[in-house]
């Protein structure tokens, strides 16, 4: 353990300015897309969850919704872990 920590510490950390730049580039790419296109993705996300809630209990089951915006194409990823151990985790992947 210790020895790994040692190597991790030895790796030079990106400067805080470099981290600032990277974070800005990511967040602004998202914001720019949502500015130009009519933004139905948040609504789609909400309605999808409503549909899922009709069949599974969202409160007790693991549901993960991830929205990835890109310049060319955005991905809405919904991962639902269903209660029964016999059923494999269902994955829905919708490319928009």
């Amino acid at each position: 353990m210790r020895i790994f920590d040692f190597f991790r510490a030895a790796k030079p950390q990106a400067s805080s300015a470099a981290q600032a730049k990277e974070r800005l580039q990511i967040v602004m790419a998202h914001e720019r897309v949502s500015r130009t296109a009519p933004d139905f993705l948040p609504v789609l996300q909400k309605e999808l969850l409503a549909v899922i809630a009709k069949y599974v209990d969202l409160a007790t089951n693991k549901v993960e919704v991830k929205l990835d915006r890109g310049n060319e194409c955005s991905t809405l990823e919904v991962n639902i872990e269903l209660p029964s151990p016999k059923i494999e985790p269902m994955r829905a992947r919708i490319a928009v």
Partner: protein
Amino acid sequence: MGKIIVMTSGKGGVGKTTSSAAFATGFALRGYKTVVIDFDVGLRNLDLVMGCERRVVFDFINIINGEARLNQALIKDKRVDNLYILPTSQTRDKDALTKEGVEKVLEELRQEFDYVICDSPAGIERGALMALYFADEAIIVTNPEVSSVRDSDRILGMLAARSRRAELNEEPVKEHLLLTRYDPARVERGEMLNVTDVLEILAIPLLGVIPESQAVLRASNIGMPVTLDDKSTAGQAYRDAIARFLGEQIEHRFVKPERRGFFNRLLRRTA
């Protein structure tokens, strides 16, 4: 017909008023008849920065409401020819700025002046929208700091979508980046975004880099636009930026840390 320029940023406290005063003074020094208008209704400050706070009788809102004539409200600068200030009201709120009222005043001013500079309030609400709505050109004042850069991008979005030029499908508002409070030493240590990074993120042409400078506070203390302090780095950087705005090709100074020798340091204590 004069040009309408908005000094805008989204984020507060980044240097819009300082830059409005500096640019207005710089244009006037170059012989252009210039007026600078305070759009920050309720938080009047341009008068203090320009040093004319005791000469305010009528204001921008009085003109919009037809309670006074334009030349009763315009304050002529005592130091520089061709320079006028139109202060704003301290008592009313931003709703006092109607689109029709603002348009009437700006149209009248652009008949008489070469440059009309609109000092925008912070935010993206009515006051900021009114300040940018009629603009021909926009100077985006940005600090090398994450929230300022992000807010600048939002303002660029507003200029592209909600300005008069955008609504009428005219040629878009011309955008310029003014990076202020730049600290080259911190940039060199990797503690501050550098000018290339900000340019890469915002992707608009660079008008100038104004270094962090103690002269700015000193100038505002005495109500003097920092352009008039031609010994200061900030004053010189503003003069360069103004010259670039007027089409001159000038290299960017003050982007590298100053290497000062011991004697130099003694002789020039201030930035």
